[in-house]
């Protein structure tokens, strides 16, 4: 039933309520978590959108020096960031595989995929720290230029979101290990639901990372164009 037709109901008349379907406990709980996740992703989208808008505005000030675009700028060679991207992608795909494994009750596949997802996510975070270290070694400190400040800010906030997800993933891995020991089917169903939500979150954060990556490795001319489109 569409939102518009729901909002057009005349509740003061009798018999305006359509039939309802009662879902079972599992479907209801999954639905609740899915709804909450959708709203949460909406909030995260607002946070990153606002950061990006301020970045575009700030990029038009004369003291802003882009981190890419010219050969001597550190992110013109973005190989290190591509490696990190691959790490995050692999962890997302591993989570997807864990969810499929849980659906088919394949214990080994689920556990192995979960392990890979956790490992590669941690690796991604460490690799991001490595990029920070490299930039600092080159003299690109957080306060030396607004472009640097934004690089540390974007990667830091994105990393914190991954870290939050990892906490949830750690709890799921713990649960999965216990289920594997006891091997109970309904629990696999619950786990599959959690893994599906985690996978959505991971894919979403991968998408955010791709946007941030593209933004931070763009040239000053690109910023100028984007800022002009935003009206700055």
């Amino acid at each position, binding site marked *: *039933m569409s939102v518009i037709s*729901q*909002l*057009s*109901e*005349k*509740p*003061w008349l*009798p*018999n*305006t*309520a*359509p*039939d*309802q*379907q*009662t*879902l*079972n*406990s599992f*479907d*209801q709980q999954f*639905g*609740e978590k899915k*709804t*909450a996740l959708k*709203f*949460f992703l*909406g*909030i995260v989208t*607002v*946070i990153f959108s*606002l*950061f990006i808008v*301020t970045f575009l*505005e*700030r990029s038009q*000030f*004369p*003291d*802003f020096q882009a981190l890419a675009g010219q050969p001597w700028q550190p992110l013109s060679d973005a190989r290190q960031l591509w490696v990190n991207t691959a790490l995050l992608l692999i962890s997302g795909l591993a989570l997807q595989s864990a969810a499929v494994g849980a659906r088919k009750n394949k214990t080994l596949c689920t556990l192995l995929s979960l392990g890979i997802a956790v490992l590669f996510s941690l690796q991604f975070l460490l690799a991001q720290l490595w990029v920070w270290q490299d930039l600092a070694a080159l003299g690109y400190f*957080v*306060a030396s230029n*607004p472009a640097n*400040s934004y690089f540390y*800010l974007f990667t830091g*906030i994105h990393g914190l979101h991954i870290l939050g997800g990892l906490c949830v993933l750690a709890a799921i891995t713990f649960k999965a290990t216990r289920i594997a020991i006891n091997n109970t089917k309904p629990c696999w169903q619950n786990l599959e639901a959690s893994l599906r939500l985690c996978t959505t979150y991971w894919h979403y954060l991968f998408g955010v990372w791709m946007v941030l990556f593209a933004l931070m490795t763009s040239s000053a001319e690109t910023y100028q164009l984007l800022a002009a489109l935003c009206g700055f």
Partner: protein
Amino acid sequence: MSYTAIADQPDELHDPGSFITRYIWSQDHKVIAIQYAVTAIMVGLVALMLSGLMRLQLGFPDTFDFITPSSYLQFVTMHGMIMVIYLLTALLLGGFGNYLIPLMIGARDMVFPYLNMLSFWMYLLSVIVLMSSFFVSGGPTGAGWTLYPPQAILEGTPGYDGGILLMLISLAIFIIAFTMGGLNYVTTIIQARTHGMTLMRMPLSIWGIFVATILGLLAFPALLVSAIMMLFDKLLGTSFFMPAIVSLGETLEYSGGSPVLFQHLFWFFGHPEVYIVALPAFGMVSDVLSVHARKNIFGYRMMVWAIVAIGGLSFIVWAHHMYVSGMNPVFGFFFATTTLIIAVPTALKVYNWVLTLWRGNIRLTVPMLFAIGFIFTFTHGGLTGLFLGNVVIDLPLSDTYFVVAHFHMVMGVSPIMVLFAAIYHWFPLVTGRMLHTGMGKFHFWMTFLGTYAIYLPMHYLGFLGVPRRYFSMGSTDFIPESAQSLNASITVSALIVGVVQLIFIYNIIWSLRNGKKAPANPWEASSLEWQTPQVPPAHGNWGPTLPEVHRWAYDYCVPGSVEDFTPQNVPISQTNMSEGEGEGISDHELTDKDDKQ
């Protein structure tokens, strides 16, 4: 056709086994609501005391040595921030949202009770962090509640060191707490409504809380983003908001940042915040008016659509707070237009409240008095908003007492009138006792007339050009002597109104023990929260089975009905119709699927 997911799992409900899990680490939405409410009221009393101190200085300058220019600015800042965020937002959504949502939609609890509990404890932590700023070196920040950089983090502003840091950290914690609670509220409303509770059968209180929560979830991130960036500027020396600047004769290392950028971010949160406070108040006052006028709310659908429209429009009016900030003047035209547009659904709501009262069987109970008082104060504050929304009128009035009068009437006094109405209305449900009516009426008249004695003269001070946030006016030619007399009169009124609130607190404490025992449905309301098997509702709210909803929440004095009101959970077939009317209605009922079954 299915459209909602509901299932009753009383067995799965968290069980409060011990005293601690029942009353302290409680996951019960009712206990969490009371925890939120008590904390918010306590911290609100601190903010009330701060306003009293400010008024003492303004009314009787050079009299109180302990109020210095710095401490005055700190009082202003903390008063504003506490009232807007830590009292109004927390009490309306954390308090009333938590209490009313599950009861009004027929759920046993919030869908994520543990997260709900964490939300309160995070909120309490944010309050503790904020209050601790009174005790750090330099005291709390005195940057004004808007915390504008560059002055907020520069030497010379009170609390520029520890005070501002604690404020920003406290805000960040509050936002995390709100997000935890907010996700619960929206998910519960979307996913956990009982059988028959369609979206359009929800009481307007729930609609107000629902849309306000969505606004909060989308607007608070802007405050979080600006707080994080300002923390970077303060702690790491970045220049997001800080321009090149010479402070106290010293050239600072900042360069190129944009203070106006902060203002945009702040007001992108700040204006929706007005509606985060106002929309739940709109919803609750609608319900109180309807119950005590014994009439259905006039134009229910329009009221719902207006809430949704106001929610949407509130995101495109923010820069009317920034006409004098130096932003592109072309923006002024756009934001003045959107501001006038948002006045349309808002005015529509006011008309509908008045039309609900029209020819109603009005019971002048204490909640009703406060609700009617709200219509006055809100109309008053709303009309002055039309002045300030227009660029040419705003420019001379900006940063004067006219603005102070406007926003206190519209988002200070008005939501607080609704909060009082709501507390008097739902207190019997929460405690099983009635509040004392005599004390309540005294409280209403003193508060209502008192607030007019405070804020009406402030409009005139604003017309004279008396600036806000000034510790002392000094010798200023354009401000006549009489302005000072007016200020003294305002202070006396403010102090009286402040003291009267203690009578309200006393009434609550006295009534908890000595109040008249409340009947199950003392106001004869038809909404679901009053139909629980026990009053106050027990853990799990509804006994062995969830209620089933058969009608909307506003069946009062329905033509042909014998009863003055019909609760939402009474089936259509059981409606008591007078002779001659029953047959006609039962024809309708024959088509009712529930009844056929």
